[in-house]
């Protein structure tokens, strides 16, 4: 089935054929023909953002919470360059996105035309792949390939740059099944020999740990289900990276909490002391490993990853299994069952005894206050008052993000959207809108810091316009909290540029945007204020004034191994000296 139509119509037709129901975008000169086509149809909803970076983060929130690719439409030049941060964010966190950008007409490319930028050149290292389409006949096929590449293998952002004359010209449309995609078919099945070797290690391991990551969530619901089955059947403890929270339920019996720089004491010590580490869809990020030379020194390591370049990139592993998490876990479970469901029971019992000992440290303990809201307390109350609801949480980047990861509990995948790899301040507000657009009836909360939140606050206009009742829960300490914490611990308490001066009145700001503002500064009022936020049918900006100098613990200072963790009650001065660290 090939039909003649203009390039602009082809774009819309291709999106429909790919099952796209919503596009996040911003019009401009070089995409006017596509906007003209969008105007003349009702199948695809367009969310008009206030800045292109917001569009990309919204698409990320949409993608992360649905498992479907997010679609972005921007104009040439500044439209495309504004989208760059979001694309790198999606690349680092493996989020499938299809970004369509307008370009000056083909005959003007290279002349420094108005709003011309070398978009494919700029975004080449920011995307998984990108295309400049110079021929309308090839446009539909490229868009279908773009969806294929974005969603196959390790997901990621792709960009299709479409010159304006290609949008106007007429060409032959190709349906998705006519598009050639055989050139890119990453392997999903793992090597059975390697899987069997891993099962052999699992049968004997005395101190195993399942170290799970965002790959489990990207692999789909089946992967989370299989992870739960394996963890529960073997009795192995489960920890997760920031990106993997929810793949294994926080209420599950094997759960030992998040690991990493601000991970739980028991999780990091389990990583350090284990004799078998099974990395499932994580990537040994530096926030996870700490000092490489001292990373989990006594363990055999296995790594399941769909991206061959992730294996042995920073940590040398004994068993590398290239494949999709769900496919590999299914085979792993089958082989383990077929070999008689063996585990080292006495070893495991001792191991759990040790882990329970570590848990007694209660590493998340903080000193509460009757007069000032502690950020940890605010999140504990938020957790208690929203538990059991269909809840999605996004975050900005910084201390609040780590506290949210520590104090909020996730029992399902795709409910937690945060900028992990790139650490993009300004991610959370637009991401929450993207999530809300995908799940209109759900409770969507963005746990934010005031500094991050201000970076994309213009998107409140989008939330109000599209009636996305997102709750902006801002832990306002009038500081760049994480920067301040590092300056306190590592830079001699010289607080260079790490405070928020001239902050807006968030309640008035909310009113100016046409939504609701709530301010709370007294712990006694907090529950009522949170309930008021939850009860309001519309977007809310919640200004929660919290303790200004609270530090986020536990903390593994940069360049330290897992067993040199700072705890909340540890001396905070001279943290990089050994006497400030807790040695186990």
């Amino acid at each position, binding site marked *: 089935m090939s039909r003649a139509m203009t390039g602009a119509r082809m774009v819309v037709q291709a999106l429909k054929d790919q099952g796209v129901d919503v596009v996040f975008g911003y019009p401009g000169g070089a995409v006017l023909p596509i906007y003209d086509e969008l105007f003349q149809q009702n199948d695809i909803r367009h969310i008009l953002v206030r800045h292109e970076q917001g569009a990309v983060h919204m698409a990320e929130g949409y993608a992360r919470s649905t498992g479907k690719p997010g679609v972005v439409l921007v104009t040439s030049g500044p439209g495309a360059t504004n989208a760059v941060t979001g694309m790198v964010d999606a690349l680092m966190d493996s989020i499938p996105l299809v970004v369509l950008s307008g370009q000056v007409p083909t005959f003007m490319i290279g002349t420094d035309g108005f709003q011309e930028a070398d978009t*494919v*050149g700029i975004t*080449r*290292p920011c995307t998984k*792949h*990108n295309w*400049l389409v110079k021929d309308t006949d090839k446009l539909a096929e490229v868009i279908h390939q773009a969806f294929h590449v974005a969603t196959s293998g390790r997901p990621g952002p792709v960009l299709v740059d479409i010159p304006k004359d290609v949008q106007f010209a007429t060409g032959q449309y190709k349906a998705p099944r006519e598009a050639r995609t055989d050139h890119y078919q990453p392997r999903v099945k793992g090597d059975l020999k390697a899987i069997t070797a891993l099962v052999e290690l699992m049968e004997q391991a005395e101190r195993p740990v399942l170290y799970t990551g965002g790959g489990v969530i990207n692999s789909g619901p089946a992967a989370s289900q299989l992870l739960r089955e394996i963890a529960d059947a073997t009795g192995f403890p489960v920890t997760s990276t920031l990106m993997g929270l929810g793949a294994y339920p926080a209420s599950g019996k094997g759960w030992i909490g998040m690991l990493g720089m601000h991970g739980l004491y028991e999780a990091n010590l389990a990583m350090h002391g284990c004799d078998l580490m099974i990395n499932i869809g994580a990537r040994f990020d530096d926030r996870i490993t700490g000092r490489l030379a001292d990373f989990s020194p006594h363990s055999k390591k296995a790594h399941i990853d769909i*991206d061959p370049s992730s294996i042995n*990139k920073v940590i*040398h592993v004994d068993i590398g299994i290239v494949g999709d998490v769900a496919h590999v876990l299914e085979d792993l479970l089958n082989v383990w069952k077929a070999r008689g469901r063996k585990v080292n029971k006495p070893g495991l019992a001792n191991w759990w005894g040790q882990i329970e000992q570590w848990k007694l440290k209660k590493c998340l303990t903080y000193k509460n206050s009757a007069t000032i809201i502690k950020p940890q307390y605010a999140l504990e109350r938020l957790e208690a008052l929203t538990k059991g609801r269909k809840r999605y949480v996004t975050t900005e980047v910084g201390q609040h993000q780590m506290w949210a990861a520590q104090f909020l509990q996730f029992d399902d995948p795709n409910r937690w959207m945060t900028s992990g790899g790139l650490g993009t301040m300004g991610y959370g507000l637009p991401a929450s809108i993207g999530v809300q657009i995908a799940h209109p009836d759900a409770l969507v909360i963005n746990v934010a810091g005031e500094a991050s939140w201000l970076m994309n606050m213009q998107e409140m206009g989008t939330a109000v316009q599209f009636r996305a009742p997102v709750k902006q829960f801002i832990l306002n300490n009038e500081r760049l909290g994480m920067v301040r914490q590092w300056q306190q611990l590592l830079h001699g308490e010289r607080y260079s540029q790490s405070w928020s001066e001239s902050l807006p009145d968030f309640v008035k700001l909310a009113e100016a945007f046409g939504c609701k503002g709530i301010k709370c500064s007294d712990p006694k009022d907090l529950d009522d204020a949170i309930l008021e936020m939850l009860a309001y049918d519309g977007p809310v900006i919640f200004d929660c004034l919290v303790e200004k100098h609270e530090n986020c613990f536990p903390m593994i200072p940069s360049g330290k191994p897992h067993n040199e963790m700072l705890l909340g009650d540890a001396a905070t001065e001279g943290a990089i000296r050994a006497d400030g660290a807790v040695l186990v």
Partner: protein
Amino acid sequence: MSALNIKKGSTSHSAYDLRDPNAEIIESHTLAVLVDNEAGVLARVIGLFSGRGYNIDSLTVAEVDHKGHRSRITVVTRGTPAVIEQIKAQLGRLVPVHDVHDLTVEGASVERELALFKVAGTGDKRIEALRLAEIFRANVVDSTLESFVFEITGTPEKIDAFADLMRPLGLVDVARTGVAALSRGI
């Protein structure tokens, strides 16, 4: 392994991959990368090397299958065994890359480079240059009364050696193509 007296880190003459992936030995590897000859593919490969801090000692590229629009990129790179493995994996996951062959470890291979040398001089120096060119089986592809342009093909080491000899004899300019390589046998 030591009983076999195989030099650690060397595999070019061994059927086994005996290298210690963590060894801090810098090795030179010749990679053949087969790619779709689409716009930007070379920039993608080069950008990967510069973006991730890898070395390129030599790079050649040309379309080798005009019908299928396939190009062959031959790149000579240096790094520790772990870095070399990472380079191959990173190249392999680029969408237009079909195949990555490490000719240095995948059995024997032939490597050739073509170079043009302009040598200016008169008298004995000119005669000596011509005599050495014959020994190196270099062809004269241009000559004036004061100069020759020699065309020479061989391994990069042979071309280096020829350059060293020509330098005192009036070497003016050199153009080198970089390495092209193929595995031996089928």
